[in-house]
């Protein structure tokens, strides 16, 4: 018999409570005490690190302290994000075998395709972008990440209903020379919100309903709203909250800021000036984040954003292969810009 999903909205909460609920549900799922859950999350303003990130490296901690922005760590992977009450979080928690078989890449795609279907019902042209983003015409609308703990799985995503880019730039370290109008415009080319896309802020209930319809249609799930999470989850919640509030949880990864400097390089090419701003992991020799800019012309327009996504976390030794694959796959007209120029400007930046 098909399992029925419990759909629940746990309301506006501080980040530590939301993460503790994640931990409690994952545990009760692993122990077979609870059935599959689809949860909507709302956060008081906070900055959320990916599980393996260091707060000192990713955030302006002084600004967060000044502004009373809570800093927390997710159980799931991916990059740091800001979350405020205008954003909507969603997640599924279930035994791994309730989802289609395949590797983790395939699984992400399956889940994101369900969310894409739902968001499209709002009238936006959403699509999945590897590895785990949902985008509209090259601009990220939703980021996702997951954890697989034994046989229990939690996969979550955000929906940017509205977005305050200047505030985001104050909280998160992004590869920009300075936080000016240029930086804001550059981020606006890469991230978007439902409000920007629709010209109005949709009601939360409308977004929730659309997402659920996507999951129902894609997976054929039966999903019923419930007023609360199962009791077994709340039984585990106090212990989980204690763990999440401990200094050890936030300090899982405490690499210093100096190991992740900004680096920049400019290259003059026959196709125009190419600038690379990057956050460079000197310990692992990896590109953690990057923005390309300049006066070049490239088609399709989204090609550069796709390249940035493909290069995130790439080891410097591997950038040639990544750039070449992007160029070949993307049917790109770069009008004088060659793959070697992208590689060269990156190597220059980290030299």
């Amino acid at each position, binding site marked *: 018999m098909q399992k029925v999903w419990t759909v629940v909205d746990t309301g506006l909460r501080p980040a530590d409570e939301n993460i503790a609920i994640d931990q409690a549900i994952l545990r009760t799922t692993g122990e077979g005490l609870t059935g599959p859950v689809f949860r909507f999350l709302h956060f008081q303003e906070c900055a959320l690190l*990916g*599980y*393996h990130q260091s707060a000192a490296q990713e955030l302006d901690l002084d600004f967060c302290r000044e502004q009373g922005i809570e800093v927390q760590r997710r*159980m*799931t*992977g*991916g990059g740091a994000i800001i979350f405020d009450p205008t954003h909507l979080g969603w997640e599924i928690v279930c035994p791994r075998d309730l989802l289609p*078989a*395949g*590797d*983790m*890449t395939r699984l*992400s795609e399956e889940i994101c395709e369900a969310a894409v279907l739902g968001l499209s019902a709002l009238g936006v042209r959403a699509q999945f972008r590897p*590895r*785990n983003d949902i985008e509209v015409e090259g601009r990220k609308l939703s980021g*996702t*990440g*997951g*954890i*697989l*703990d*034994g046989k229990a799985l939690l996969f979550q995503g955000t929906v940017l209903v509205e977005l305050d880019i200047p505030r985001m730039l104050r909280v998160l370290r992004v590869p920009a020379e300075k936080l000016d109008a240029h930086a804001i415009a550059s981020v606006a080319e890469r991230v978007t919100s439902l409000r920007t896309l629709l010209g109005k802020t949709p009601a939360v209930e409308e977004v929730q309903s659309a997402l659920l319809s996507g999951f129902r249609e894609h997976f054929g799930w039966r999903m019923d709203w419930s007023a609360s999470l199962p009791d077994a989850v709340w039984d585990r919640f106090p212990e989980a909250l204690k763990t999440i509030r401990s200094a050890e949880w936030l300090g*899982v*990864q405490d690499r210093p800021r100096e190991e992740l400097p900004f680096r920049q390089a400019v290259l003059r090419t026959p196709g125009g000036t190419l600038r690379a701003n990057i956050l460079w992991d000197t*310990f*692992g*020799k*990896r590109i953690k984040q990057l923005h390309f800019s300049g006066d070049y012309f490239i088609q399709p327009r989204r090609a550069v954003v796709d390249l940035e996504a493909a290069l995130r*976390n790439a*080891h410097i030794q591997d950038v040639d292969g990544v750039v070449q694959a992007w160029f070949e796959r993307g049917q790109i007209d770069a009008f004088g810009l060659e793959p070697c120029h992208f590689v060269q400007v990156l190597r220059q930046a980290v030299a």
Partner: protein
Amino acid sequence: MGTVRGCEIPEDLMYNVDNNVWLRREDDGSVTIGMTSYACALAGQIVSYTPKGVGKDIKKDKSAATVESGKWVGPLKSPVSGSVVATNEEVAKEPGLINKDPYGSGWVARLNPADYAADATELKTGGDALAAFEEKMNTDGFGGC
């Protein structure tokens, strides 16, 4: 070297097949543990590695380290109880080593086992391990490495 659906599964190692983890007993009595090539194929390119620190006590089937690939976090569950005696600095610098050489330089943790004899009875090796992985891959619907 044993192979199951294209995934290398060395027959001289011990395995917890459910958790997709290998173990090797060292001459000094410590054990080295890591991810199988099958686990690596499921995970994809690993980009982060955070081990439990040296001196930490780990219970059997609890996390000795976490890894991340494609925004998925996954704990590596220790097949035996014990205390951590070493973590892999090379993997910390280059987590992709786990994919490149899962049974060699991509090892994940070294432990001093608390009761190896008791915990090892639950592990599989040789032909038994190959058969168990074949069955697991079948259940998981896995096509091959």
